[in-house]
């Protein structure tokens, strides 16, 4: 049986990981390569790197970082942030990235999803969607929730699947940072309407939240950042608990 995946997400700026890291054995908490290797060692199934660099040098530093990670890491990883054209994606693929995640660029130009799928295969294309509940509707947001769009989350995801997205990374901006659990209702609803894998994101605060999102929403993977970085949840313990609850995991 296919295992449910646990995915730590790392924010990267200028080739360095940001946010506090609480691993004991880490010589350099800002080194994405060392941090990634540590997560792989702990049993992470996959990693997501979100690049938040805003300088002109971003592409070059991103490629260099991806190469360094790919040299060392023996599990798959996705890279997201600032990918707007085929050339960006191709450079990342050649540097060893397994998947790329696109967000704003796809909203501005949905054809990008189809172009990426055609060039590199659907398995390479993750559509990241930030969603917020507004007046009874789920609305797609950009720029970390600051910019509202006219798109309804459910229909946007369905359209992205038709265009060639291979996986959906859905972040609830209402739940993100609250540590009160994932938005199981929305995730479950969307999971039923699509035939591609979906990664739950936003709201993880304790191990029970992961059990809940797999059991209630039936998602394929769950992503979190701070609970892993600060050592509040340790992946081996999390996976043991999931297994005890009858959820298939890789241990």
């Amino acid at each position: 049986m296919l295992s449910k995946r646990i995915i730590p997400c790392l924010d990267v700026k200028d080739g360095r990981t940001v946010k506090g890291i609480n691993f004991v054995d880490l010589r350099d908490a800002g080194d994405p390569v060392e941090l990634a290797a540590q997560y792989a060692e702990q049993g992470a199934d996959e990693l997501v790197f979100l690049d938040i660099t805003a300088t002109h040098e971003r592409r070059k530093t991103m490629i260099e970082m991806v190469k360094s990670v790919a040299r060392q890491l023996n599990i798959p990883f996705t890279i997201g942030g600032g990918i707007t054209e085929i050339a960006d994606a191709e450079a990342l693929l050649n540097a060893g990235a397994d998947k790329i995640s696109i967000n704003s660029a796809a909203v501005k130009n949905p054809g990008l999803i189809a172009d990426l799928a055609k060039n590199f295969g659907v398995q390479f294309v993750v559509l990241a969607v930030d969603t917020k509940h507004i007046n009874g509707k789920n609305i797609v947001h950009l720029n970390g929730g600051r910019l509202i769009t006219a798109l309804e989350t459910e229909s946007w995801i369905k359209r992205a699947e038709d265009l060639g997205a291979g996986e959906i990374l859905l972040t609830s901006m209402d739940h993100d940072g609250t540590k009160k659990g994932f938005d199981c209702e929305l995730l479950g609803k969307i999971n039923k309407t699509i035939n591609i894998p979906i990664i739950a994101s936003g709201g993880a605060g304790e191990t029970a939240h992961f059990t809940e999102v797999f059991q209630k929403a039936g998602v394929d993977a769950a992503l979190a950042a701070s609970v892993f970085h600060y050592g509040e949840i340790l992946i081996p313990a999390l996976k043991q608990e999931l297994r005890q609850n009858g959820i298939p995991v890789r241990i």
Partner: protein
Amino acid sequence: MIGIINYGAGNIFSLTAALTRQDITYGMVNTVADLDLYSHIIIPGVGHAGAAMQKLTQTGMVDAIKVLKVPVLGICVGMQLLTAHSEEGNAELLAIFPLKTKLFDKGLSIKIPHMGWNKIAFKNNFLFEGVAPETQFYFVHSYFIEYNPIFDIAAVHYGDKFSAAIQKDNFYGVQFHPEKSGKEGERLLKNFSNLSL
């Protein structure tokens, strides 16, 4: 030394990185003449099987690959190329194995692609020497190789049972990505590099 068939079907950075981590030396096979330089051959491949077969045909290496006597390992689409036919692009392939590569059946209420870690049941084969039972490997694919007990050396379930690994004489294929499957994947690559016939 391992020769990697360099035919432009997908990126091989992760594969070469995994070989380097295992201190396995490798080089690129660009022409038929290059095939003689290596003791082992890997056929990588990501993407569309039909398109990959076209690219391989363009290298002029197809006939030479079919008669190779050294150990050959096809990975993912590289494995599918070893079969006779793929539903992806309705393509005729190398036909080293009389097997078919088929599209997953959506009717089985499974998501496509088959993406993630799945447990394989492998047979007693040198490729899996030292690999713990119940080990999971990383898969990402929308087409699969039909199960046939004659060639199957590892089976996996997703919707239905299919082959995660096959062997016929010196030809091996794995549907999963050993270069992305943690330490056990690296062990498999090491085992392959140590294979002698």
